[in-house]
């Protein structure tokens, strides 16, 4: 009888339960997006006028919706299976890229759209929000003692294992 010498955990049989950490991160990003929106819109208005302000607001909105959609897809799929979460991450990337393209192409001929501030706001708000969020996440992951203040801290929920998952892990340990 052949026993596997290097038993691999079965990602198909495992899933995450409880609140999704990705959704918590995306909500945090959306909250920060709302916080930076007035300053960004004012900057857009200063350099490109009213159309620039509207375009910057549109870019910021696209970025925030993109984060929320990504987190919702990952969180929903992770409750079913980790393998489905991987599929959701890959196909979600394509779907969201397509949605962003459609959203921009639909409005590009509108008189209130300036493509340059729209593009700049897409890139800068995306990267800026991520770096801002990463500061808090890395602090709470690497140095729990250096967590940000309570009012700015996002609690990372540890997933609870289901009895099915526990059984799977026990079987793997026995192997």
């Amino acid at each position: 009888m052949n026993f596997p010498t290097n038993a691999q955990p079965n990602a198909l049989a495992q899933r995450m339960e409880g609140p999704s950490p990705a959704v918590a991160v995306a909500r945090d990003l959306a909250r920060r997006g709302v916080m930076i929106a007035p300053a960004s819109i004012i900057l857009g208005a200063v350099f490109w006028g009213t159309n620039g302000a509207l375009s910057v607001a549109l870019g910021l909105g696209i970025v925030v919706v993109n984060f929320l959609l990504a987190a919702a897809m990952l969180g929903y799929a992770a409750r079913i299976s980790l393998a489905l979460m991987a599929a959701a991450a890959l196909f979600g990337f394509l779907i969201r890229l397509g949605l962003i393209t459609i959203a921009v192409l639909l409005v590009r001929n509108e008189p209130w759209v300036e493509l340059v501030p729209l593009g700049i706001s897409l890139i800068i708000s995306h990267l800026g929000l991520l770096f801002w969020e990463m500061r808090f996440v890395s602090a709470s992951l690497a140095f729990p003692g250096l967590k940000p203040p309570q009012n700015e801290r996002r609690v990372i929920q540890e997933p609870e294992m289901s009895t099915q998952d526990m059984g799977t892990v026990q079987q793997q340990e026995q192997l």
Partner: protein
Amino acid sequence: MSTLSQLAALAAEADTTAADDAKNAAAAQGAGYAYGLAAIGPGIGIGYLVGQAVQAMARQPESAGQVQTTMFLGIAFTEALALIGFVVFILLKFV
């Protein structure tokens, strides 16, 4: 003589139009390549990232929350590359 000059003018106009068409086609091709190539790299990166994250979560379910948080941020950072490619595309194509 006037007929010859008219023909010359028409030929020059046709040359200009052909040059504009070629320039527009080259710009469209460049924009398409920029968008398409910029999406390939992040696709590979997200696939690798998610694969490793799923393996980590399967091996250590107790740390799945931390892994998913890091994975989500990694996906978003990788996606920024595709977003930059998209912005280059719209700027090349429509501005």
